[in-house]
């Protein structure tokens, strides 16, 4: 660990790279070659949803339009996630070069970084960095001498709404509208920013792309598991000796991670931030992987001293406030789930009603308009299931399911 709490021993993302290297290589390649490497690498989106990046870029590339856009989703709003901040601050070459590859591959002339409002402090240095790239002809017109390859990047600031990390809400926000998710289909790859085909990718996805194009898809997929190739940056926080950003191959088990970060007496691990699931001890042999315990990078560790009802309440309060408020299941559903948690806290509940709320949570997962409401019940359902014993035997005078 260094002073910035980054474990830089990662084999993929943190491997050697110099600015512009990949761009010089890319301009000699066909768009299809790049898409082939991406497909070969089996890279999945690093924001958490895990959509195959090659498919997203292929669809954007195939869409016909006068203009296309590449957007870097740097809204990093998921509680407990801070790995994009590290990439932007310390490895901007990976992010921006990745965006240039994106622009080249999908045929976009503009790239936009949607930067989390709270990261305003890094805006100036990022803009300086882009200026330096322009000076080296890594951005601008006829990049690296490639006739007709024009691409430039602009940075826009978000205003603090969690939902704007959802790609269509992000696009609405970029267009100057309220941050609210759009209906899909149509998807941004066809109808995105300003109605044009748009590829929205996470900061870390762009960074991974750089290494894939430099070193090959084959090399990339040597890391990780068969279904979750490569490695992942994890933002580790909570009850451990060494919180920070770690690059670990997909497939690492929770136990291995806990060892690495120096966590003892761990009771619960929340994988995937507030919208993720909460695992108990008996599940610590599970793997961090899309096919098992998937995450956009957030790992929160809770030791034996933590009250799980309190943990859950904190998450639900977050969603009640951060729901964009447009669709019924998310806007009101989260309120009902929070009320349920408060009932448990006071010991004034019936199992009948708690079960109804779990069913409501299941409805929210399939009925909400966007990923926010579809994932907000995850912690409610998983905590009540995995920590049943603790929660419903809390000895605080509860009626315990009369």
């Amino acid at each position, binding site marked *: 660990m260094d002073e910035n709490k980054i474990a830089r021993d990662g084999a993929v993302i943190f491997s050697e790279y110099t600015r512009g290297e990949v761009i010089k290589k890319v301009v000699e390649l066909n768009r299809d070659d790049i898409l082939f490497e991406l497909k070969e690498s089996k890279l999945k989106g690093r924001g958490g949803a895990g959509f195959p990046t090659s498919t997203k870029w292929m669809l954007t590339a195939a869409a016909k339009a006068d203009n296309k856009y590449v957007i870097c989703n740097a809204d990093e709003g998921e509680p407990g996630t801070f790995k994009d901040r590290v990439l932007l601050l310390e490895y901007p070459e990976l992010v921006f070069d990745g965006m240039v590859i994106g622009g080249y591959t999908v045929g976009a002339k503009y790239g936009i970084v949607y930067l989390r409002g709270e990261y305003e402090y890094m805006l100036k240095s990022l803009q300086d960095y882009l200026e330096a790239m322009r000076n080296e002809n890594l951005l601008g017109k006829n990049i690296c001498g490639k006739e007709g390859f024009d691409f430039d990047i602009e940075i826009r600031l978000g205003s603090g709404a969690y939902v704007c990390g959802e790609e269509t809400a992000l696009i609405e926000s970029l267009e100057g*509208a309220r941050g*609210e998710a759009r209906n899909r289909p149509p998807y941004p790859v*066809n109808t995105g920013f300003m109605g044009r085909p748009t590829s929205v990718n996470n900061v870390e996805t762009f960074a991974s792309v750089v290494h894939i194009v430099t070193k090959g898809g084959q090399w990339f997929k040597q890391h990780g598991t068969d279904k979750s190739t490569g490695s992942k940056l994890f933002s580790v926080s909570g009850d451990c000796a060494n919180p920070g950003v770690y690059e670990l191959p997909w497939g690492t088990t929770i136990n291995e991670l806990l060892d690495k970060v120096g966590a003892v007496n761990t009771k619960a691990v929340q994988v995937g931030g507030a919208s993720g699931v909460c695992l108990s001890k008996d599940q610590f042999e599970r793997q961090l992987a899309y096919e098992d315990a998937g995450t956009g990078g957030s790992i929160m560790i809770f030791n034996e001293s933590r009250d799980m009802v309190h943990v859950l309440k904190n998450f639900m309060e977050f969603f009640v*406030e951060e729901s964009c408020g*447009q669709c019924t*299941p998310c806007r009101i*559903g989260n309120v009902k789930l929070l009320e349920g948690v408060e009932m448990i806290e006071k010991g004034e509940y019936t199992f009948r009603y708690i079960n109804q709320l779990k069913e409501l949570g299941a409805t929210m997962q399939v009925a909400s308009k966007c990923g926010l409401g579809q994932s907000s019940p995850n912690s409610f359902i998983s905590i009540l299931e995995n920590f049943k014993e603790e929660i419903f035997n809390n000895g605080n005078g509860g009626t315990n399911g009369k």
Partner: protein
Amino acid sequence: MENKDTQRAPVSQKPHSVDKPADTTTIGGTISIEINNEKHTVPLGTTILDACKMTGIHVPTLCHHDDLCIAGVCRVCMVEVEGMRTLQASCAFPITSPIKIHTSTPMVRKARRHVIDLMLSEHHGECYSCVRNNNCELQSLANEYGVDKYTFGHVEKSRFEIDNSSFSVIRDMDKCVLCKRCVRTCIDLQEVGVLESVDRGDKTHISTFMEKDLADVICINCGQCINRCPTGALHANDPSDDIWNAIDDPKKHVVIQTAPSPRAAIGEEFGLEAGHSMTQELNTALRRIGFNAVFDTNFTADLTIIEEGTELIIRLFKALVEKDETVALPQFTSCSPGWVKYLEHYYPEYVDNLSSAKSPQQMFGALIKTFYAEKAGIDPKDMISVAVMPCSAKKFECNRPEMADSGYQDVDYGLTTRELAKMIKEAGINLPEMPKTHFDNPFGDASGAGLIFGATGGVMEAAIRTIVEFVLGKKAEDVFEKANVIPVRGFEGVKYYEIPLGDQFGPVPALIQHLVPNWDWLAGATLKVAVAHGTANAKKIMEDIKAGGKFSECHFIEFMACPGGCLGGGGQPIPTNEEIRKKRAQAIYAEDESLELRKSHDNPHVVKLYEEYLTEGPCGHLSHKLLHTHYTKRGKYIA
């Protein structure tokens, strides 16, 4: 970064649809799908909701409205699509691949029930005391899904203060279910943009700029939001209690005028299919309720044609012959109070283009408390003048301070079609069973030209019938088949029409002969007119005029604030949609064609009024005092 679309309205919910093929008979124009294991073929790009409708399957909806762009926010219309992890909002899902849809699986039914339960948990207010009782989409949904208890509780305390600042629209946000129909109506359909979602999460609510009262923002009172609200969250400011009190007061002489559109729609409130005119049944019902006299607003519509037409001739003469550059052209109609306020807010620099002629409602108001009062020997202070209108903005209009030329408030109450239907029901009257009777004198039955004021293009058609006869000296029937001016009819958003006057014109009738020293300047002229309905379409014309486009060359333009004109007004029965608007228009045009009297200038009562009372003729001194008005440059910023 380029941004060419800066002109668009600040749209919160834009329609993100796929391109539909123009011709569905081409290969790839249609697509085979399965709904509930039955095979169907639908045009590419059809939404699941429409596909279900086509195949006779009912899918419940709430935020969806045929007039509005897609929102997909209420989530009531969810269905299962095979291969997709989540349920899909059928209103928002365009079909582009051969999908298999299931509309009534256990998961779908449970999810819908949950959504309804959630909405009910936050819906404060009880059905009995609600203006929308028995015509509420939330109530219907609860009924359809067998809701027999509040599964997730029910908010007992009011969270919002009722905003009754507006003369026209009352907002009771405790009943709001955040379907955003009002927002989409205001921003996308009307392009006024007064209502928007405010705050987020559980604090989300619909509000105005800086959360001001509706009376203090640039609301035009069109009431289109009311017509699309699924619950009682938005409703008109109902004066019927005051009217009942006036009727019960033996000292009061209560008269009522009825506009053309309510009679074409009120039958819907009594279970009739849209498109049944109830003109003469309504007259009987109003007398049985206790109104002392029942007048036809079409009379003052006829009068409007004479006054406004006269004004146009004077303006044209001044501008074209005398080259007076201070004269504002094109002349805009001023019948629609929603349009007038829209112009005052959005295009205040054009208030001089508005005809100074009052709307038919207000002309009548001024005449009832002067001419009629004199004739009937009643002190106008003992009169209560009511106007049945398809409109919520008329409530605002009659409260404009300048509308008191009789010495009293000219029209005391504007009553919507819905409110009148409620009064009729309360009086125990089944309207369709009423015997037919005529309107009362001294104004009598008016012309078909006045009647068609109710449909978009109607004012223009009525004006054209009169202009043709006045100026060309021909019968309108000789110029237009059955005197129907088809080019200005129909629901196209913006209509443009040219009428070459030719070299053969006159003789000009005595009524207007004296207006200008000579009439030769009209020889060979072409009258250019345009029609727009809905303020979004009005905006198109106004922007074109500002840019000096073809509409700036027009002489006369009819504007109506509401889609379809008055027949689609904010006071009309709910629901109102395109199909219903079409049927109401058919009823109006059919009634017009059935009448003997179809031209405003032929109305014998109008002729008599000029002979007996407005003796200086149209635009004369008394006309100006009673029948004309002025406007306010309001602008968009209200202190």
